[in-house]
């Protein structure tokens, strides 16, 4: 299956390039665009892993909705160019070294894990693996509690965002606003 290999390497290079672009590019707007490319490449990888529904959700929800939110905030704040290293602080110079060590360690952990199936293409798949029907059935039967907890979490996050980003005057009662100003 040389075709799958070609698609994998193309998508992997795209994903890595997108990831490096997010970190390296100075303008936050370009970083967001680079992340969109990264997410689309990851969706291709998910398709290679037979996760059709997750790939679709990745493109629609992540690369679509969440990234639009980012673009709006970057436009609101004003994406100013940031000097990559204005001052050589200790953590800034240790960051790449730490990340390199982490990557080597993770590779060792994965490849030396003793999982024999890691060198295979994966288990035999039943019919309907990764389709919306099977994912939905798992979400509503086996994983019902996490599913409902996730919906509560989304509600709490939405309320929290409204509380965080509202204007200080106007919505709050008079007494609390004065205390906050003081």
């Amino acid at each position, binding site marked *: 299956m040389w075709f799958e290999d070609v698609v994998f390497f193309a998508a992997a290079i795209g994903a890595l390039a997108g990831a490096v672009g997010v*970190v390296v590019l100075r303008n936050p707007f370009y970083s967001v665009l680079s992340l969109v490319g990264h997410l689309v490449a990851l969706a291709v990888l998910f398709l290679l892993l037979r996760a059709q529904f*997750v790939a679709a959700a990745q493109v629609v929800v992540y690369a679509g909705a969440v990234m639009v939110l980012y673009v709006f905030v970057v436009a609101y704040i004003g994406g100013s160019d940031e000097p990559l*290293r204005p001052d050589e602080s200790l953590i800034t110079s240790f960051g790449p070294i730490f990340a390199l060590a982490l990557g080597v360690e993770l590779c060792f952990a994965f490849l030396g894990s003793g999982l024999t199936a890691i060198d295979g293409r994966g288990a035999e798949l039943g019919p309907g693996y990764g389709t919306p029907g099977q994912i939905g059935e798992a979400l509503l039967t086996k994983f019902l509690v996490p599913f409902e907890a996730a919906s509560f979490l989304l509600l709490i996050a939405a309320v929290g965002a409204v509380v965080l980003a509202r204007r200080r005057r106007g919505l709050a009662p008079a007494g609390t606003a004065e205390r906050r100003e003081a």
Partner: protein
Amino acid sequence: MDVAWFLVLSAFIFCIGAAGVLTRRNPLVVLLCLELMLNAGNLALVAFARMYGQSAGQVFALIVMVIAACEVVIGLGIIVAMYRRRLPIDVDRMSELRG
């Protein structure tokens, strides 16, 4: 493609994201790098789901997406609040919880 390739790729993406979180100072870019790390985790979860032939890992990946969306909403809310209060958009100079 062997599953190991996907896992190694996810390790690389994770450490690129970690490097970004450590080195960048714009909170927007720090959030983007956190997304990178979460996505690397997602890739590993889906790869393991493929390895065992069960769809539980894909459900985990979807839940991680929900968590990431929540994190984005709160993080961007904080950034907008920082901007409204004329605070510097810089993670190194934010040292108080009550700005």
